């Protein structure tokens, strides 16, 4: 892009500043609300700063629900899905990128079906499947539909395809063929792709709400977003904005801080997700 004139730059700053402000005000507002005393929010003029900053709302959340259990469940689900996905997508991407076999193109289209269909439209049947497998109300039920990833396979396949044949032949001559080539050459070369996929996958499953809602019945397997949603619909939660905002903040805090620290990595990963999907 060519360098633009100062006046135009000033206008660009002004518009971006307003846009960024509109985006960030809701976040600032809930952070401030979370530190207020319960009755302070029922004021007819906006009070931005808490009059008597308090941590009681956060402590109240820990009393009102098994918050750490939700946290643990969320971690297990998000990282569990990713761990299995890394195995399935590596093997499939490697086969599709570097092996010739009958039916390969047809199978690849069958894989891409997962990218093209709306996952929510198969929720009923997937519910019936996990029920008949006896998995209802387990963390495995939440994880099951995501253990294969067309997006991840597609992303890695692109990287694996880019590795020159000569490199593979040279490695084979040095006794580094097959599996060893995969582990010592292909995977290390694809690390940026793995990182991008991993960040998108973790974010998606940390945030997911509807599928876990359908397949869980108790706090046994429920994740953070569900804990938040259920708390909001109890009498206690729906009447107490300060506690609800404290919990919202507790749910988003860690991913948000990680995002702010590794901003560029996250944004680049999501960029690739758009190009792949």
């Amino acid at each position, binding site marked *: 892009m060519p360098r633009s004139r100062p006046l135009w730059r000033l206008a*660009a700053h002004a518009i971006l500043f307003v846009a960024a402000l509109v985006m960030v005000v809701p976040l600032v507002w809930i952070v401030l609300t979370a530190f207020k005393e319960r009755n302070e929010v029922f004021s007819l003029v906006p009070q931005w700063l808490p009059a008597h900053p308090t941590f009681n709302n956060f402590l109240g959340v820990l009393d009102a629900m098994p918050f750490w259990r939700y946290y643990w469940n969320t971690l297990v689900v998000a990282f569990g899905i990713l761990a299995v996905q890394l195995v399935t997508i590596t093997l499939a991407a490697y086969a599709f990128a570097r092996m010739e076999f009958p039916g390969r193109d047809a199978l690849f289209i069958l894989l891409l079906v997962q990218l093209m269909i709306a996952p929510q439209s198969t929720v009923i049947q997937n519910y019936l*499947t996990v029920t008949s497998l006896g998995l209802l109300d387990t963390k495995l039920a939440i994880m099951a539909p995501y253990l*294969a990833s067309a997006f991840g396979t597609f992303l890695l396949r692109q990287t694996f395809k880019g590795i020159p044949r000569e490199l593979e032949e040279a490695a084979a001559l040095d006794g580094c063929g097959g599996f060893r080539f995969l582990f010592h050459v292909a995977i290390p070369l694809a690390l940026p792709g793995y990182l991008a996929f991993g960040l998108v996958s973790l974010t998606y499953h940390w945030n997911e709400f509807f599928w876990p809602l359908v397949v869980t019945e108790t706090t046994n397997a429920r994740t953070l977003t569900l804990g938040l949603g259920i708390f909001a619909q109890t009498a206690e939660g729906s009447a107490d904005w300060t506690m609800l905002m404290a919990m919202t903040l507790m749910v988003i805090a860690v991913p948000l801080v990680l995002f702010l620290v590794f901003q560029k990595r996250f944004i680049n990963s999501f960029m690739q997700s758009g190009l792949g999907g």
Partner: protein
Amino acid sequence: MPDQTHGSGAGSASTWEKGRARRRALALARPYLYILPTFFFLFVFTHWPILRTFYVSFFKWNMASPRMEFVGFANYAQARSAPLFWEVLRNNIVFAIGTVPLTLALALALALLINQKLRGLAIYRALLFYPTMIPMAAAAMIWLWILTPNYGLLNFYGKWLGLPDIHWLGHSKLALWALVLVGVWKRVGYYMVIYLAGLQVIPDYLHEAAIIEGANPWQRFWRVTFPLLSPTTFFVGLMAVIDSFQAIDQVYLMTGGGPGNATNLFIFYIYQNAFRFFDMGYGSAVSAILFLILLGLTVLAFRTLHRRVHYAA
């Protein structure tokens, strides 16, 4: 495959043959073994459910009893004659029309601004993008609080501008637009980033050539940038439309489909029928209709792509 030497002993000719046959079979099977785990999960949780959605949609089946009764197209006929089905469809179309063009236009405008070499760019980008990172459930809570009557932030400043106190989510005409607002807020940063990726592959010399030709910024945008972004707009638009037909979290948490059924969208309607009324047959029929609508949109979009979009990204 590296060829290894085997069976140097005199009596091992036949075992050598057997080993070779086994290795050849293994070499043939190897790609299939590699894709097996993926296709196992894909079949169980993607292909099979699609087929089964259509199958179950021809039955009357209450989850409470195991009995399934074949009823042909009765579930589809039920949808056709149910006013609520049409209301849900209309709601979802309004939601898509409200969300998608606005989100895309804002995303593109912001991407163009961010793509200048401005100071503080990283901060702007982070503040515009962060709603993508947080769960829709959290966004729903934030906006519930902002939209709440009397004490909500929006009403404070609405009153300040002379607007009456509005109960956004309790109003049958406004509630859907409140969901549109949340949808735009949540997604605009993501689509901005996708547009940024599209902008960055447009070569500089095209802009420079346009400048030499005397094109002003407005002409440069419509004659150079926008046409070159058409593949991006196409994919982003398709993704956004499909996304708007999948919206459920905000409906479930912010309005429960109400007031009345003013914000009842497709997935919520399916959820109600399948998991509240346990009518799996009808729920499957509506799922099948949704599936066909989205498939139709995808096919239509790809055909348009072939005809209209001449620039490969």
